[in-house]
C-alpha cells in the first residue's frame, strides 16, 4: 500500500481539476492506500472558502472534501500565502490582518508551503491536479 500526497491547484467551480483530484483521492483510499495530505495551492485554495454556495441540486465539492476528512482523517491543508492573496482567511489570519470577517471552512487548516515540501518528501507519490 502506498502513501499519496495530492496537490490541488484549481478553483472548485469553473474547472474540472478539483473534482478530478477528489475522485482520485476517493479511489486511492478505496483501494487501501493512504492520502497523507491534500494540499491546496494556487487557485486550489478557493476550495476552502466556506461561502461557496452551490445550488442544492449540484455536487457540493467542499462537502465532499469534508466527508473525506471525516471518514478517513485526511488532513486538508491550505497554502496560507496563496489563500491570503485570494481572500481566503482563517479566524487567526483575520485577527492578524485586522479583517472583520473570515471565511476558511474548518477542518481545512492553514499551513505553509513547507508542509507541501515535507509532505512530498514523506509520500511515495505526488499527484497534482
Amino acid at each position, binding site marked *: 500500500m502506498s502513501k499519496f500526497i495530492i496537490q490541488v491547484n484549481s478553483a472548485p467551480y469553473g474547472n474540472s481539476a478539483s473534482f478530478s483530484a477528489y475522485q482520485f483521492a476517493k479511489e486511492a483510499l478505496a483501494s487501501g492506500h493512504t492520502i497523507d495530505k491534500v494540499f491546496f495551492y*494556487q487557485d486550489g485554495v478557493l476550495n476552502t472558502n466556506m461561502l461557496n454556495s452551490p445550488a442544492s441540486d449540484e455536487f457540493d465539492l467542499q462537502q465532499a472534501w469534508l466527508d473525506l476528512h471525516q471518514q478517513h482523517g485526511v488532513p486538508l491543508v491550505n497554502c496560507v500565502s496563496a489563500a491570503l*492573496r485570494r481572500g481566503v482567511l482563517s479566524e487567526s489570519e483575520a485577527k492578524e490582518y485586522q479583517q472583520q470577517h473570515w471565511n476558511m471552512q474548518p477542518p481545512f487548516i492553514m499551513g505553509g*508551503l*513547507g508542509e*507541501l515540501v515535507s509532505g*512530498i518528501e514523506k509520500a511515495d507519490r*505526488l499527484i497534482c491536479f
Partner: protein
Amino acid sequence: MKKLCIVFKQAPHGTAHGREGLDFALLSASFEQEVSLLFTGEAVLTLLKNQDPESIGCKDYISTLGALPLYDIDTVLVCQDSLLELGLSHEELRISTLVATSDEVAEHLNQVDEVMVF
C-alpha cells in the same frame, strides 16, 4: 531529501503561475530538497533582462532569480526548441542557464523524484 524539478511552462506576469512556482522552488530548496528548474515554451520569457513587472501591478519576482545560487539551485534548464521558436539566444537571458535539447530534458525528468508544472 528528494530531487524536485519545477517546470515553468507559462509566460510571466499574465498569470501568477510563474511567481507561485518560483516561491515553491525557493521554499523547497530552503527545506534541503535538491531543486532544479526547467523553463519551456513562453516561460523562457521569464529569463529576459530589463523587465519591469511592477509597472503592470505585478510583484517583481524576476529579480529573485538572481538569488538562485544562494539557495543552491544550480540546475536551471532552458528548452532549446522554445528559445528557437521565440528567436531568442542564450546571451539574452539574465541568469546562467543550461540550454537543453528535448532529449536532455526528458533524461532530466526521468532522473528526478517528482516534477511539478506551473
